[in-house]
């Protein structure tokens, strides 16, 4: 679960990491108040998407009046598909140098990983490998102060910056551990008048651990439809094609999209109905697909824990309830296959047993629908 910048900075602040003075801005009045309190400010759109600055999501205001006008323009604007609902006003920084630091989990070593660079800022992803220092952390030991000193030394920092940086590494790792973070990142980590300041921050909390963090604010992400399906407890991503897809298991759902593309079609979504979904959630998920108004619906089920007869019952429930006004292609094999196929056949739906044939048929029908 991603946290907005201002929430991430609140947490950095409680761990003693310096952040610029700032306040949340919901209205033009808030913005004008912010300038009176802080002086000239950067007004930063609070959205959960990267590349915000380049997309016009950060603007500067010298005066209260200017802050008011800018806020009026920014609230409600569309930023890379996200509507800006809130700004964060922050004291404008005179930045001498931009560093980078993050703590994340390395899937390969199965340990925490600290990465740092003297070449921070918006171009960090293009920095050459040699300019990034990486150190895995032994989870049994954690990050003791010496680890921070070694990292500061590897970056070639000196004097005050050396000490501040070494200290910051320890605190950042503590946040990663305490908050079950997937990622805690400061970029840029600014040098202002010889001291380090977290100019921007990201904090992503592990969704699986959120239950043990009542102090972390719950933040919804995604389109209305995505949220609706996620509420049923299923994984869903919108795509831009015209063949709606339901499959069981993430890998199977991905393979189904691949199969549609293989035959020249375009999938409308990714929907993982889960490894063992029962009748009701499956029917709800199918209801969502119907509401998307696709040209064709393709259901691809390999019943393991999922029972084919349950899937058939869900299909019939939707067909006889809200109705399925578009062509439906069903591939059904696995546990209780015979019963599922029989239930569907009784109501005039012929199920396929081969995934390739079903995908090809779905693409053909989508083509015919124009």
């Amino acid at each position: 679960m991603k946290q907005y910048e201002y929430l991430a900075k609140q947490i950095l602040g409680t761990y003693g990491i310096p952040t610029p003075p700032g306040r949340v801005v919901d209205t033009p009045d808030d913005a004008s108040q912010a300038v009176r309190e802080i002086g000239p400010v950067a007004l930063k759109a609070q959205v959960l998407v990267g590349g915000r600055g380049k997309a016009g999501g950060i603007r500067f205001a010298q005066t209260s009046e200017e802050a008011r006008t800018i806020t009026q323009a920014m609230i409600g604007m569309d930023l890379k598909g996200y509507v800006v609902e809130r700004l964060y006003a922050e004291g404008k920084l005179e930045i001498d140098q931009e560093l980078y630091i993050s703590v994340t989990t390395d899937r390969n070593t199965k340990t925490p990983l600290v990465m740092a660079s003297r070449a921070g800022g918006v171009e960090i992803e293009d920095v050459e490998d040699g300019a990034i220092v990486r150190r895995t952390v032994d989870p049994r030991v954690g990050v003791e102060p010496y680890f921070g000193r070694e990292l500061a030394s590897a970056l070639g920092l000196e004097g005050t910056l050396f000490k501040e940086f070494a200290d910051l590494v320890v605190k950042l790792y503590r946040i990663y551990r305490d908050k079950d973070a997937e990622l805690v990142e400061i970029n840029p980590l600014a040098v202002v008048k010889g001291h380090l300041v977290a100019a921007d921050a990201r904090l992503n909390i592990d969704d699986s651990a959120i239950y043990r963090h009542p102090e972390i604010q719950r933040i919804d992400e995604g389109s209305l439809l995505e949220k609706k399906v996620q509420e049923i407890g299923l994984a869903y991503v919108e795509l831009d094609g015209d063949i709606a897809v339901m499959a069981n298991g993430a890998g199977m759902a991905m393979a189904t999209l691949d199969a549609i593309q293989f035959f020249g079609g375009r999938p409308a979504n990714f929907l993982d109905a889960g490894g063992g979904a029962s009748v009701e959630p499956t029917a709800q998920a199918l209801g969502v697909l119907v509401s998307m108004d696709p040209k064709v619906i393709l259901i691809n089920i390999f019943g393991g824990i999922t029972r084919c007869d349950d899937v058939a019952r869900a299909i019939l429930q939707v067909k006889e309830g809200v109705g399925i006004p578009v062509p439906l292609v069903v591939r059904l094999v696995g546990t209780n296959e015979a019963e599922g196929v029989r239930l569907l056949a009784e109501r005039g739906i012929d199920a396929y047993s081969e995934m390739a044939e079903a995908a090809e048929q779905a693409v053909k029908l989508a083509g015919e629908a124009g």
Partner: protein
Amino acid sequence: MAILLTKESRVIVQGMTGNQGRFHTAQMQAYGTNLVGGTSPGKGGQRIDGIPVFDTVLSAVQETGADASIVFVPAPFAKDAAFEAMENGIKLLVMIPEHIPVQDAIAIVTRARDLGVVVIGPNTFGLISPGEKTKMGIMPNHIYQAGPIGVVARSGTLSYEIAFSLTNAGLGQTTVVGMGGDPVVGQNFVSVLEEFKRDTKTQAIVMVGEIGGSAEEEAAEHIKQLGKPVVAYLAGRAAPPGKRMGHAGAIIERGRGTLESKEKALRAAGATVVTMPWQVADAVKSLV
């Protein structure tokens, strides 16, 4: 023969009296797994399908000599269950639950390395050795058959699809291993390929991967010296760009993790790469 799991494995079920635990205990028993016991705190002394229930792994191990455990407890209790198993001498640990916090998974796999425990999962369907008539997992029993093909997969249902297509083509399996879908899991392609390399019965290996991470690329470097043919199928050709974890994800992977980079690396290592799941069985047939 098989890898990791054989008829000799003495298996317990942690969380045996819950809905899932009870159902899969019966399924595993029906398949032929040597189930010697189970645990459920406070329910020691009962029997489920004739299998003794213990309060603790300690007493289960003392009474039965168990050396393998499959865990069905809810995710928030999974770390505790894993440590209880490892500290009491379990050497093969299958972690079925999904949504285990990553920090807990890190703690589990770190301890497992120290103790020499093989962890399968978390968030896995488990593993099955058809020739040994034994399984630790939640996969359907009827889709496998004994034979010379090793299968290693990240994803459950997709591996069922492929295992079943192998079975239908007359290509049975030595062992099918599900590594698990979480960011931090006990095994990787390299460690499982190494097991298949040593297994004299395994003649060819099928890898079922997907986009994201760089596990497939790491495996490619290993395939060169494997001495056994590998067929790889990776899902995600048409998938949308994955959710990126800030800049850190992009920096770690550096051009790895895409389907193109994975397939390229696997081909360069001599693996046969197919683009659709239904092409796997034919590709394997041409190699064995």
